[in-house]
């Protein structure tokens, strides 16, 4: 094998040293040696495999100066302006291999929202007005019935203490309301149980497009076609008054549903001039919102003030906060590009990364909950892509969907779930990310 590589040697050789953070059985000698400069990832992978002498070769990915090698080493050095004279330190990590697609779960209508927050269940929202909760073996265990129009988005409520016993979520719908659901997970049986909502969050004057829950789980925020963002309190303490108010109203109007309590918005954030397409509330004090008015705003929760505005050149449909230091804003929209901003950089409003590979609008994006490099995007071109911010091209393209993909999420850290306009929920499992 070495001889074949030797044959390929043209004129350029570079000194390299391989390092890794992998366990000792996957470490190679740390001394420097020369390799031909025209090798790419594939070639280097073979070199490392030869050095390791594994019986089953394992593909590796290579990091030079914190960037994944996607061209040949020579081109990389040229474009980076690194001299080829010194010894180059290359870190290797296992390649992220494409996950295995599972049997898709069929819905009656388009799947507009999906959440893999709960480790045992997947929650989906669909255009048939119902939410569904699926268990790991692929059965629909709960049917969430209550909305009178299409569900556009859903948000799981983080509940640190009681996550094992119950699962709470909020769905947003085109019927201008949001509904709060509580699912007792021990009820999970093989047959589908129909559930009614616990609370109805009413106040938007138009379709609700996006929803996000606060990290404490006490509040949710929602963005709507009426361009406002509203904050809703779900805490138990205030329930008494809310209940009273709700009762009064119910008496006046002749209530729709006797079991659900009505909740009014606590605060309204005004500022966007178009639909609020994406929301993120992963930091306790700040809400980030992306809107079709091309802007990305951050809001202070306490004072309800717009603290920062970043602008894109096209409408933004989705938003996710995560990555390095949990501070990078990723947003995609009408121009096929996923842009990632770092709001901490002074003096600039330009995005730090622009990831382009999709051929149509981006409908959803989601940072990996643990990794600071991996991000997932779903697009109307029917693909779900997994990106590493250290490379300019996607790691993996998943094209199981036959139509537009409307939503995607991580599940159990190593699964990807996605729902689309082909009315299918696709699950991809056994994704091995190294981080």
């Amino acid at each position, binding site marked *: *094998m070495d001889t*074949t*590589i030797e044959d*390929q040697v043209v004129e350029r050789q570079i000194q390299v040293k391989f390092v890794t953070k992998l366990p000792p059985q996957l470490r190679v000698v740390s001394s420097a040696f020369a390799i031909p400069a025209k*090798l*790419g*990832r*594939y*070639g280097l*992978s*073979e070199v490392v*495999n030869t050095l390791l002498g594994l019986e089953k*070769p394992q*593909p590796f990915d290579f990091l030079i100066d914190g*960037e994944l090698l*996607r*061209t040949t080493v020579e081109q*990389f050095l040229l*474009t*980076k*302006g*690194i001299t080829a004279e010194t010894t180059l330190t290359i870190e290797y990590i296992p*390649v992220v*291999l*494409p996950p295995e697609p599972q049997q898709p779960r069929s819905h009656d209508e388009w799947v507009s929202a999906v959440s893999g927050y709960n480790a045992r269940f997947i929650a989906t929202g669909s255009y048939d007005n119902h939410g569904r909760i699926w268990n790991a073996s692929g059965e629909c265990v709960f049917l969430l019935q209550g909305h009178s129009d299409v569900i556009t988005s859903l948000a799981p409520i983080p509940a640190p203490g009681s996550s094992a016993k119950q699962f709470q979520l909020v769905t947003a719908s085109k019927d201008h309301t949001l509904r709060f659901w509580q699912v007792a997970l021990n009820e999970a049986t093989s047959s589908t149980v129909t559930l009614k909502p616990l609370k109805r969050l009413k106040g938007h004057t138009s379709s609700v497009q996006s929803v996000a829950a606060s990290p404490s789980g006490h509040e949710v925020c929602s963005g709507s076609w009426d361009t406002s963002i509203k904050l809703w309190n779900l805490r138990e303490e205030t329930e008494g008054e809310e209940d009273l108010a709700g009762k009064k109203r119910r008496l006046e109007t002749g209530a729709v549903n006797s079991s659900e309590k009505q909740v009014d918005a606590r605060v309204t954030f005004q500022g966007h001039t178009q639909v609020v397409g994406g929301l993120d509330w992963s930091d306790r004090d700040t809400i980030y919102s992306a809107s079709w008015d091309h802007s990305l705003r951050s809001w202070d929760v306490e004072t309800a003030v717009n603290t920062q505005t970043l*602008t894109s050149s096209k409408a933004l449909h989705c938003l996710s906060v995560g990555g390095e230091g949990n501070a990078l804003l990723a947003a995609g929209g009408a121009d096929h590009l996923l842009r990632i901003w*770092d709001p901490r*950089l*002074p*003096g*600039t*409003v*330009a*995005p*730090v*990364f*622009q990831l*382009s*590979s999709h051929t149509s609008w981006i409908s959803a994006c989601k940072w990996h909950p643990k990794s600071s490099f991996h991000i997932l995007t779903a697009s109307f071109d029917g693909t779900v892509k997994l990106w590493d911010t250290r490379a*300019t*091209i*996607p790691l993996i*393209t998943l094209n199981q969907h036959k139509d537009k993909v409307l939503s995607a999420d991580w599940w159990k850290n190593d699964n990807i779930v996605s729902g689309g306009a082909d009315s299918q929920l696709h699950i991809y499992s056994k994704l091995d990310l190294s981080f």
Partner: protein
Amino acid sequence: MTKPTKHKSKSKQYLAPTRRKEGQAAKYITRNKALNRLQIKLPEFRRLCILKGIHPREPKKKVEGHNKTYYHVKDIAFLAHEPLLDRSRELKAYEKKITKARAKRNLDLVQRLLGNKPEWNLNHLVNERYPSFVDALRDLDDPLTILHLFAWLPTDNSQKIRPEHIESARKLSLQWQAYCIRVRALRKVFVSVKGVYYQAEVGGQNITWLTPHSTSQVLPSDVDFRVMLTFLEFYKTLVGFVNFKLYHDLGLRYPPLLDEKLEKAANELYGLMKGLASAAPVAEEAPKAAGEDGDAEMAEQEEDPRAVESQVRLASLHSRLSAIDKEQEMPAAVPEAAKEPEDEDMDSSVKLFKEFKFFLGREVPREALLFVIRAFGGTVSWDGEGAPFPESDESITHQIVDRPTQGHKFLSREYVQPQWVFDCVNNKLLLPTDAYVVGKICPPHLSPFVDSEAEGYMPEYAETIKRMQAAASDDLPVFEKPESNGEADISTADVNVSLEKAFTRDLSKEMAGISYSASLEGKVQTAPEEQEDKKSGEASQSIPEADEAIQMGRMMMTRKARGLYDAAKMGQAKKAAKIDLLKERKKKAKAKGEEK
């Protein structure tokens, strides 16, 4: 039979004088009628017309008399719907309220009223008059000229030219210049009696503006400054928007955080440029930009002590006019950072002075030279406060002077007259300096706005320059980078796609257990094919024009068109005669010179 006709004629006779529904009389109204209709006074009307861009018309039939100004009815209706009309009424009422409250000594009310003055801005007019950004760029010549003019005017109470007008005009024009330097947009400069003409290429549009010479200006008595100030008001709004968009497109903050303190500004820009460099990564560009960033960092470190030093000086010189300080700081801070990310992709001509260090004497026009030299990549210092490096700096390559005797001459640098800079820039060529040395009469300063080939007459010096340009292009291009990173932003997408394909292909092969070396053996060479795909020959076609067609065309013309055509021909003939005359004179002058 006669009765009905009689009746008819009678009814016509007694037709009530109603408003006309068609014809010239219905389409146009006189200015006085327009004033009545809009219920405003003449000065207000004039102002509104300027702001909305409405001109008087020349109707075919002037129904109301020949000595009157006519406006189109639709234009007046357009004015009648203008929200500014209401705004000005509100303002008037508000002023009345204040005077009334003052007269009644109701100071509380005055205070309260002063707090909520009706807002007056022209933002919606910019949007209305320039629906797209290119429209605004196309129309930027006049606004820039006016702003640069006002930036140099003295304040005048009798003409109501207030210091804040001057200040904002100055700020906007400097922001514009800083942008031109930042993106190396400047293309042509011409120094004339009227002032300095500049032409920049922004967004694919050639924008030409004129700045006055930096001498004290006298306000002429025959200029109505009320009109000028109305224009200024609108242009300020327009250029503000344009600057915002230009800065924003670059990812720069607007207004630039520059004018407070030099040091702070430099830091801010440094951070900003770093941000820009890392924001660029669309495949190939990214590593390159990052590589340059390293260089830039080093450059920054070099500059740093100087920046601090000049900051100290600036701080000590508090008495100096802040306006002048600002003017020096802003362009100084911008180009330094500007060198970093884009230099490589730029045409070599726009970094003509990149290798050079200039020093300006006290007697040369500093404003213009600072702008031009920086816009072409040079580093400049001057004789005065806040200068980045002193005259004694050994690395200075050119000193620009305009007086015959020098106190101390450094042998390491060239002493040239200011015209050299402008001529170099216009011809995109480093001209030999011996024609421009101090004390000599410079060669003619040829206008870059005249296309001498189209004009037919090529001045002697233009010919010389042309020969030099040809020679320079034959030579190895001195200012071009040897490596060609031709990939532009558009093609990075293609590169990405092919990279992505290759990556997935390789990965699937490797997962299947085929090693790299094994795959190479089986692989058909695809790379050359791809390269061949990219190459596509362009065949240019030239269609010769037949003389006959012209003759035929002339015969087929209407009489009116033929008249126009002949007039055009006559104009051309006149021009040719003029050129002949010039040539003859030149010949005579030469003969005379030889005789002597």
